[in-house]
């Protein structure tokens, strides 16, 4: 596979990277872990004239605990998140989700920032970060800004990243006490992307009832979406099997589920409910 001709840049500072992005404008494309962009370039679905590699930028990689949140550098690989002691301790859902992305080669190369910037509607990170109420922290020539995931991802392969901007970090608020989270996905037999993936974050009150619930679904619609009816059904309930099951029935509510080669719309709705139940059950157990 032979991509169209392009010029490769490897900036060593953020200023240099931003300048290159500005100069190249529409013809430029930042490259992170290369797992989505390069296949598209090989198929000539995208033909950037300038490819700006972010791997050498300082400060773009690694996970930090600031007390209130985990700051995950955009260039942190899935594999690093999977193996991060910090993530495993503070928000194990992150490591779990990372460990089920693609295969090991993909995880060694692909990055969390790259995945979010690509905004594949079947990717795992959008659902997980959405459920965790995460933001992306963006840097650009005009300065820095933070955007909530639900506002950042606009649609399939579309984000609100402006030309000349880069994702610097993914910022995930640390969970309140008695919070449990889990991500469960049905991988596509070929691509290992999510046929459906459900991320659930549950916080219980002192009485053991659900105080807050954030549940996000990927794989079904044009972008990962909150299952709000499901969330609402959980509030104030003791998260036992019956209440979780009753809530999980709403997992695909409000999403137009379409049939494809993996199965009928009914099947995919059923699958969503099933994986929602699995994620909720795990999250509730962890919250307790």
């Amino acid at each position, binding site marked *: 596979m032979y991509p169209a001709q392009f010029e490769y840049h490897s900036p060593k500072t953020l200023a240099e990277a931003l300048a290159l992005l500005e100069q190249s404008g529409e013809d430029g494309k930042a490259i992170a872990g290369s797992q989505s962009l390069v296949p598209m370039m090989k198929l000539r679905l995208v033909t950037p004239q300038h490819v700006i590699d972010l791997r050498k930028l300082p400060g773009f990689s690694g996970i930090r605990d600031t007390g209130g949140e985990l700051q995950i550098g955009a260039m942190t690989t899935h594999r690093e998140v999977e193996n991060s002691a910090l993530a495993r301790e503070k928000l194990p859902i992150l490591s779990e989700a990372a460990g089920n992305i693609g295969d090991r080669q993909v995880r060694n190369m692909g990055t969390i920032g790259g995945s979010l910037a690509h905004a594949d509607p079947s990717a795992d990170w959008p659902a997980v970060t959405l459920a965790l109420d995460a933001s992306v922290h963006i840097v650009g020539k005009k300065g820095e800004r933070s955007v909530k995931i639900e506002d950042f991802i606009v649609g399939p392969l579309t984000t609100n990243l402006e030309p000349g901007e880069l994702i610097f970090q993914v910022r995930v608020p640390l969970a309140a006490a008695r919070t449990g989270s889990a991500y469960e996905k049905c991988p596509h037999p070929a691509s290992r992307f999510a046929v459906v993936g459900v991320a659930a974050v549950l916080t219980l009150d002192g009485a053991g009832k659900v105080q807050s619930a954030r549940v996000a679904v990927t794989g079904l619609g044009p972008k990962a979406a909150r299952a709000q009816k499901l969330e609402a059904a959980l509030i104030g309930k003791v998260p036992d099997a019956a209440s979780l099951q009753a809530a999980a029935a709403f997992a695909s509510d409000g999403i137009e589920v379409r049939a494809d080669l993996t199965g009928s719309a009914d099947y995919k709705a*059923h699958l969503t409910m099933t994986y929602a139940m699995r994620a909720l059950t795990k999250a509730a157990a962890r919250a307790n």
Partner: protein
Amino acid sequence: MATQERMFGASIKRREDPRLITGKGNYVDDVKLPGTTYAAFIRSPHAHARIVSIDSGAALKLPGVLAVYTGKEMADSGVKPIPVGWLLPNIKIPAHMPLAVDRARYMGECVAVVIAESPYLAKDAAELVQVEYDVLPAAVEGIDAIKPGAAKVHDEIADNVCFRWTLGDKAAADAAFKGAAKVVKQHFVNHRLIPNAIETRSMLASANPGTGEVTLWLNSQNPHVHRLLMAAFILGMPEHKLRVISPDVGGGFGSKIFIYPEECILTWATRKLLRPIKWSAERREAFMTDAHGRDHVTDAEMALDASGRITGLRVSTVANLGAYVSLFGPAVPTYLYGTMVSGCYQIPAIHVDVAGVLTNTTPVDAYRGAGRPEACYLIERLADLAAHAVGQDRLEFRRKNFIPKESFPYQTPVAVMYDSGNYPGALDKALKILDLPRFQVEQEEARKAGRLLGIGYSTYVEACGLAPSQVAGALGAQAGLYESATVRVHPTAKVTVFTGSHSHGQGHETTFAQIAADELQMPMEDIEIVHGDTGIVPFGMGSYGSRSGPVGGSAIFMSAQKIKEKAKKIAAHLLEANEADVTFEGGKFAVKGSPDRFKTFGDVALMAYLAHNLPKGLEPGLEALSFFDPGNFVFPFGTHIAVVEILRETGEIKLVRYIAVDDLGRVINPMIVDGMVHGGIAQGVSQALWEAASYDESGQLLTGSMMNYALPHAHDMISLELDRTETPSPVNPLGVKGAGETGTIASTPAVANAVMDALAPLGIKHLDMPFSPGRVWEAMRAAGRTQGGI
């Protein structure tokens, strides 16, 4: 030289592996020639379209672009259509030109080619070639293409039917059904697959302006066949002026047997441009254009008497051949399929009819198993359905209908004669490994708990080791199916074996050396196996149909006998003894009764070339060429058992156990055979559970990449439990049967029968493959029992 251990039967590690797994292999794309140019193909994005115009002006203006060729130019220069290697009565063969002329008939068909100084430039230029298409309606599914009003793939074939073929005695079969106590009918879809060898098709064509010779490096499973057909039939060049070299090849599974347009185009173009031209398929091109496999829709029925004996079988199949008739396209759904529907059962009357249908899809041809997987799936599924219908245990039913051990050779009513077999022997061994009584308890407990645990049996037989040339010829083959081997002993007693077989993963450099080492009584290290070069191997039919061991290996054995005969003559002369008194043991020719009077094989080899002292009239040299033409196919058989569990909640299927007891006759290298069986089973399981090619109604391939065509991942497979029985084949001097395809042939129905057994408590009798979770869940839901989480 000390007497060495017999190599035949030893699990020797593959000699080629250190080279191949450390990046020292030599694949076509590794071959570098100065001045090489690169081809890029303009392919039809439509399944069916009239080519209105091709404008290559902009492409030709790009610096570094040497040429853009179209189908018209190629046809005008006298290039002929790609021939078909197996003809059937009244077959209609539409012209298949390497570059489409006027009309493109499947998505991915070559419409034009760009030759440029670099592969990148060639792709850039290809994007600038403007092709105007007038899109036509497409015929996609075989069963739709024969309906009135279907789009015509080729104007001259009004009903899209390429051939109608029958086998067996229709009157006898009809009579069996009239007198049947019970008839079982089933509609089967054996869906289309896409081969996907690791190495995609790759080629480098280079014309020598001085000699006029063209060398074509091509990852071909049969380089001599490529040379013969391309030179004599397509390009009209003398056969001796085309040399085809097929070096290390990364897998074939059938897909590298056939003559494809690309090698014809490159060989033609290099003669015009007098520059080497290279092309390696991108994976998406491989998905679109490597010959696909299977794609049958069948209605079958089995007649049974009151005791559960099979009395008749009627099979009616529509085989989708794709847009053109590929090299062996007509043979696969006929002589490699209809002849094997009897399975391992005594069936007095069989009738098979097959319609080969042209559609606007990628051509279909032999893919690992080729016809036999379709036949095995059919008969093994029918065996289960029939046992159920007559209320008998599936194993009891099989045993009752097995061809008895003492009936071999066994003539079936569908043309073939099985060479040897012991079907209950393999079944008994497999059941012992399974521990059937224990499994039955497990299954009963599982079912009580509402779990869907199922077991499937596939007591299979297949035909391989292609083939007796005379028989093949009478059935329509346009070539003989023997194999050649030259054994050349050098003056230092080192040996080079030139084989017409071709290794693209099978391990011939090891197994063939084992055969030669035993016969010549020398270390394997002193034997080199050479294959895949028409310039140095005398002739060869290549490797497919599990023929390398039984046919190619036998040719080596024969040449080794000739070497020994001649060497013995020389030794007797040197020892001043009667030839009849000379023995060959431990690498020494000795006089019977006087073991200290001997000449080593090395002494003899040296004298053969010194020629100072040879028997009168004996020519110098020590080399032998043999052609082995088998008297029959070989018929491996065995029992495969799959145990699966279906998750009610999602319809997912977990493979729990897999047992394979194969009878491959004598086994040259058990470790290599285990590897072939492993790979074959993975492919066959994959057809049942994951893999399926899918087109939309307009003929767009929906499964054109690794992102949506589900090849098995390593972690999808479980540890396999393998064993063997050994019933030597009388067909060849080695007693071997083919081992390359049994896994693929046997495993698909084993899994299918297991899935159906798992679903039996829900009253589900048959589903078509692949058993995707979505399909299984829908079936469970339709059965009204989907309330998950028992």
